[in-house]
């Protein structure tokens, strides 16, 4: 059995909080979420953090691990610990609630702001829409559709840090999948919502979102396409 010990610094409190150090037994195949759970269940039950599925589906457990935003349930300690040390903090670019829990409300408000809701025109009485699986639009939607809303991209985005009203990579990725959804009828409304300096045109193509996305999505690609699409629509006078 492994007898090593991890030194884990965890952010406690809100913005005026501090890092508190804990000693956690090192185990084989241990994930960062395992470490946090050990601290909460064994060392300090007042520690607040968020998780649900533990298998990389729900997007609840993202945190800042040694300075980098990650999904903690699928991040092995062996990959991220430096000399047996872990530093855990809540996600950046979001208000702190307490300890490792960030307030995700601004993140999801921006999904709504980017018109991230599907709007169709068929009812249950109509026939199914026929979408060709190998069409360009379907493939473009596929490339971004697996987003689990973990907020890693948003926390990694410099542009969100610099201008907090920027919609951010996740909301724009969502908009991009809907722009490519042949059944959706809210195209113009969405284009107006995502154009401009707080929308897709704010992106500086730093590609941190694409680098850090645990699902391997590249929001940068979709955002670049949205920039061209909305700018051309604006030049044609279609954005009002």
């Amino acid at each position, binding site marked *: 059995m492994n007898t090593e010990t991890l030194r884990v610094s965890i952010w406690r409190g809100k913005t005026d909080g501090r890092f508190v150090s804990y000693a956690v037994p090192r185990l084989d195949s241990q994930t960062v979420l395992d470490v946090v759970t050990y601290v909460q269940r064994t060392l300090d039950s007042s520690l607040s953090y968020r998780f649900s599925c533990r298998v990389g589906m729900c997007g609840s457990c993202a945190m800042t691990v040694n300075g980098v935003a990650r999904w903690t349930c699928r991040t092995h300690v062996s990959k991220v610990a430096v000399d047996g040390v872990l530093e855990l903090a809540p996600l950046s670019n979001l208000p702190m609630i307490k300890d490792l829990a960030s307030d995700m409300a601004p993140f999801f408000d921006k999904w709504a702001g980017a018109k991230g809701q599907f709007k169709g025109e068929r009812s249950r009485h109509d026939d199914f829409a026929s979408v060709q699986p190998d069409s360009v639009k379907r493939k473009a939607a596929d490339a971004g559709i697996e987003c689990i809303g973990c907020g890693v991209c948003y926390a990694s985005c410099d*542009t969100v840090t*610099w*201008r907090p009203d920027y919609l951010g990579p996740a909301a724009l990725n969502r908009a991009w999948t809907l722009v490519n959804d042949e059944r959706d009828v809210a195209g113009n409304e969405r284009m*107006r919502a995502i*154009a*401009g*300096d707080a*929308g897709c*045109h704010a992106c500086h193509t730093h590609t941190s979102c694409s680098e850090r996305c645990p699902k391997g999505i590249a929001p940068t690609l979709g955002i670049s396409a949205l*920039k061209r699409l*909305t*700018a*051309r*629509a*604006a*030049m044609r*006078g279609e*954005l*009002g």
Partner: protein
Amino acid sequence: MSAATQARLWYAQRISAMILALCVVVHIVTIVYAVRGGLSGVEILARTRGNAVFAAFYVLFVVSAAIHAPIGLARIAEEWLQWRGRWLNGLLLVFALVLVAVGLSAVWGLYGGG
């Protein structure tokens, strides 16, 4: 400023960037080529005066720079200093006009002789 205007400005900045990329390459290559054997100011003026192609090229260069720079400065002012609003847009419009005036006077100095 409406989102549509912002999108149009982004487009203008992108197109002007493409033109500037080409202009800068032509500009640098021409300079390096022209001064290989040494070239005096008088010799330069002798070649540029009355050369319409030269003048048209640099007018395009100046106008592209005057479009490109203020839009980029607006972005920097917003992100680094949190400056925004009509006063800033007005200031940057003046800056663009100054760039055009200074740039075109330089072009005229080489083309028309000053």
